[in-house]
């Protein structure tokens, strides 16, 4: 083991914690500084989820993915900023201030893994771990002009990932290029006996740029209402380039996308309302006031410890699960989810991957989306993937107003390799 020097000039508030002399080791990632999103537990390093309610919390254990990254010789460079508990699309919902987009500091980096994306995009680290619940890796990758993979659900252990919405989220790799994303993926994928939802599907793939004959579905909903025509045009051009590289495109439709966003928000807020109840200041976090009665102390801790978006989502989820509403919201959302899975399965019987924009717009200006619902609506193109549990990658494919646009490539369950290959093909041959 050897200590590295890591003293980045963090102009973008990408890091919440910087490890100035991280230890590296030998292996696939020898001596490479890797940034870790602050909702992934790191033994001995403060892990806050960008929330006041976890200020000072030092996990006594490493997340499985962190264990693997360390075992591969990487040096944990620090913990990156994020929307509090992953709840947001801009990294503005951090209790410790927003992260700025390195491409334009007047704009957001996307979220919720905005710190990881900014750390990579600015060159402070070569790679980073993010997490993706409804687009939280792909959105900031798109907004910052880097590559981010949301792996198949179950392919990377979630053990140690501080849960926001267990059934939707996953840890995934972020880097400036596809090869580095693939390399980091090869380190973190695989079975973990501590995660009952993880599967024994390791990843040991060498990306190939040969996509001749690959059938690409183009869902009309990814180019419909709400998608900035300029963004759509850039993405269409990129898809045209894939055709030139030998891929075959097929127009298609995902009818269930009509209610995907509603289903997503019902499920993620329901799970969050339960997951976030444990932050009571008893076992960890700022200590609860023991002189008060339990409920008074608990309410105070949560009012002061959680930001407005987190409180809003806890309320929404509590509502969706409460007696009298469970059938209307939670149960219906599960059926919607099943319909979305079936829609994808039907499409993947005919095509190998689906392509479209990652985000409907380029990065918004700081403070632009002050209304919660308008922020939620920007997740429309990323959440279907999480509902279906399939892999998807965002790879830069051009710019609008000098801001990056991401091409999203979605694949069959456990065909992370294929979405990597298509992204690699575009990356290698994207510019004619």
């Amino acid at each position, binding site marked *: 083991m050897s200590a590295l020097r890591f003293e980045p000039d963090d102009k973008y508030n990408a890091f919440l914690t910087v490890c100035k002399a991280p230890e590296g080791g030998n292996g696939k990632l020898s001596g490479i500084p890797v940034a870790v999103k602050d909702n992934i537990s790191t033994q001995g390093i403060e892990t806050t989820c960008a929330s006041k309610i976890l200020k000072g919390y030092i996990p006594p254990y490493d997340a499985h993915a962190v264990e693997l990254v360390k075992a591969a010789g990487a040096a944990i460079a620090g913990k990156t900023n994020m929307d509090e508990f992953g709840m947001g699309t801009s990294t503005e919902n951090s209790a410790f201030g927003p992260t700025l987009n390195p491409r334009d500091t007047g704009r957001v980096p996307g979220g919720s893994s905005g710190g990881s994306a900014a750390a990579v995009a600015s060159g402070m680290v070569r790679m980073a771990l993010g997490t993706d619940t409804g687009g939280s890796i792909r959105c900031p990758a798109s907004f910052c002009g880097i590559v981010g993979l949301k792996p198949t659900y179950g392919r990377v252990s979630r053990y140690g990932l501080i849960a926001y919405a267990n059934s939707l989220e996953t840890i995934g790799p972020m880097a400036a290029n596809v090869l580095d994303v693939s390399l980091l993926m090869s380190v973190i994928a695989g079975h973990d006996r501590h995660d009952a939802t993880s599967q024994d599907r390791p990843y040991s793939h060498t990306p190939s740029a040969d996509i001749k004959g690959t059938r690409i579905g183009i869902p009309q909903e990814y180019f419909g209402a709400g998608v900035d025509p300029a963004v759509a045009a850039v993405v269409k051009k990129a898809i045209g380039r894939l055709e030139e590289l030998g891929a075959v495109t097929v127009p298609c439709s995902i009818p269930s996308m009509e209610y995907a966003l509603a289903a997503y928000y019902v499920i993620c807020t329901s799970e969050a309302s339960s997951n976030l109840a444990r932050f009571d200041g008893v076992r960890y976090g700022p200590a609860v*006031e023991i002189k008060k009665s339990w*409920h008074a102390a608990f309410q105070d801790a949560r009012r002061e410890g959680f930001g407005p978006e987190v409180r809003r989502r806890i309320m929404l989820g509590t509502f969706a699960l409460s007696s009298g509403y469970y059938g209307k919201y939670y149960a219906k959302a599960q059926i919607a989810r099943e319909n979305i899975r079936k829609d994808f399965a039907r499409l993947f019987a005919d095509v190998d991957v689906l392509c479209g924009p990652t985000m409907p717009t380029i990065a918004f200006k700081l403070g632009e989306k002050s209304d919660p619902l308008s922020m939620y609506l920007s997740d429309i193109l990323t959440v279907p993937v999480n509902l279906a549990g399939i892999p998807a990658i965002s790879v830069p494919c051009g710019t609008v107003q000098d801001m990056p646009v991401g091409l999203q490539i979605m694949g069959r369950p456990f065909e992370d390799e294929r979405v990597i290959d298509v992204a690699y093909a575009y990356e290698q041959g994207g510019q004619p």
Partner: protein
Amino acid sequence: MVSEKDVEHIGELADIGIDAAELATFTGQFNAIVEYFDVLDKVHGDDAGARDRYNILREDEAEPSLPREVALQNAGAQEDGFIKAPRVM
């Protein structure tokens, strides 16, 4: 329509500590979002949860627990190895 009274009740259920001052804003946002959720009324289909994996289990083997000082390193007030918590009425 979700009323301020409903939101207050949900706040109580969630133990989230809603201030009277926040109630109107929260209720407004809540209504906009819940109205959006109503698209789910259109959803039809079979019962969900057609999950493909079952019986993910571990063997009954005991492993060492954490040393107490590590287990309690993040806890606030302590007394004789216990963690102190508010009274429960």
